[in-house]
């Protein structure tokens, strides 16, 4: 979803070709979201179909087409920008399903499973910390803010594992 509006937002700044949209979008996200050019063209075509963007002038060199935001696109963008992010909480549930299955099937060593997971999260925190430091030293404030968000989420994941490892999963599962 946010790719669509990301494209609209970039076109609000100025008319762009597909490749320019791709490059600017990736730069804006600090390299944390790579899109292929096919996705960009598909998105632009859908936006054109829905009347949110329109081509400017004829195709140029090598078939390059410049797009601009339409009045309707402008309205759609404005509306999206003021909407709070809502819907259910997104969660990486893999580890939770693993835990549930381990208690049912094998009565596996949950503490070891949790310990391995915690260690992975610690390494993730380390990687994120280093990325934040690098982003700040390179003056990439947007990326640093994004990494900060990821750090806080990773910290919460770690705390979740701590809580789970202090609970008695085995007992519940055998009832």
């Amino acid at each position: 979803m946010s790719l669509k509006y990301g494209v609209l937002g970039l076109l609000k700044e100025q008319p762009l070709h597909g490749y320019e949209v791709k490059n600017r979008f990736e730069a804006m996200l600090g390299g944390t979201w790579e899109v292929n050019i096919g996705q960009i063209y598909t998105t632009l075509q859908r936006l054109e179909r829905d009347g949110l963007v329109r081509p400017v002038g004829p195709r140029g060199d090598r078939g390059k087409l410049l797009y601009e935001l339409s009045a309707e696109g402008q309205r759609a963008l404005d509306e999206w920008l003021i909407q709070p992010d809502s819907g259910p909480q997104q969660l990486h549930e893999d580890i939770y399903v693993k835990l549930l299955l381990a208690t049912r099937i094998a009565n596996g060593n949950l503490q070891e499973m949790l310990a391995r997971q915690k260690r992975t999260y610690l390494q993730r925190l380390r990687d994120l910390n280093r990325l934040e430091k690098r982003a700040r030293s390179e003056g990439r404030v947007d990326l640093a803010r994004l990494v900060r968000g990821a750090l806080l989420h990773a910290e919460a994941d770690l705390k979740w594992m701590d809580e789970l490892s202090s609970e008695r999963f085995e007992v519940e599962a055998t009832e």
Partner: protein
Amino acid sequence: MNTELVRLTDVTKVYQGGITGALNGVSVTVEEGEFTAIMGPSGSGKSTMLNLVAGLDRPTSGSVFVRGTDLAKEGEAGLATFRRDHIGFVFQFFNLLPNLTALENVLLPAQLKGNTAKVRAGELLDRLGIAEVADRYPARLSGGQQQRVAMARALVNKPTLLLADEPTGALDTQSGEHVMDLVAQLHREGQTVLLVTHDAKLATRHAERVISVIDGRIVDDARLESPERAPSEVIRVRGEEAAR
């Protein structure tokens, strides 16, 4: 190269009238030049570990060797000498003496006397960015400044081990980061550091080893890697295809 500095063997610590902070069969070694974080919830025993290594407390059983000396066998005077010669300790609430100036606080434990000590203290204050407040009393210093004075005091005798117990716990985020950056810089110059914290972000930011303590036991001892990774390897913004 890998010189063992600290060795705890089967250490237990029992406190009368409660189990908070007790240790139950802890064995661990720390090598020279390491930056190790000890993490755990409050009452887990992580501060107890640090106090034992510092010679501020004695184990109920087991042995605590630091630089080949068994601290459990030292008398009070021996421990005091050991602390003075080998330990720099930074506390959460700074523990500065209120009726001494910043400089006097730093000089208090200094072994070298007279001008040599003053020069060393001056260098440290300068390095920690607090030279201009050397003559102020702690009450007239911000939290971050007080902690930096405490760090200078901890470093004045060039300690073998720098121990820090929640050193940013009483500071705002920015002052805390400043203090930790200074600790990290010292580590890069070879200082062995043991940091106690409950903050995983802080621990992983600086330490390459994280020991987790729960209920008086070491439940994990993780050595972290520090590879250069591209942003997309570390963080991926969810990018589902617009399927309509």
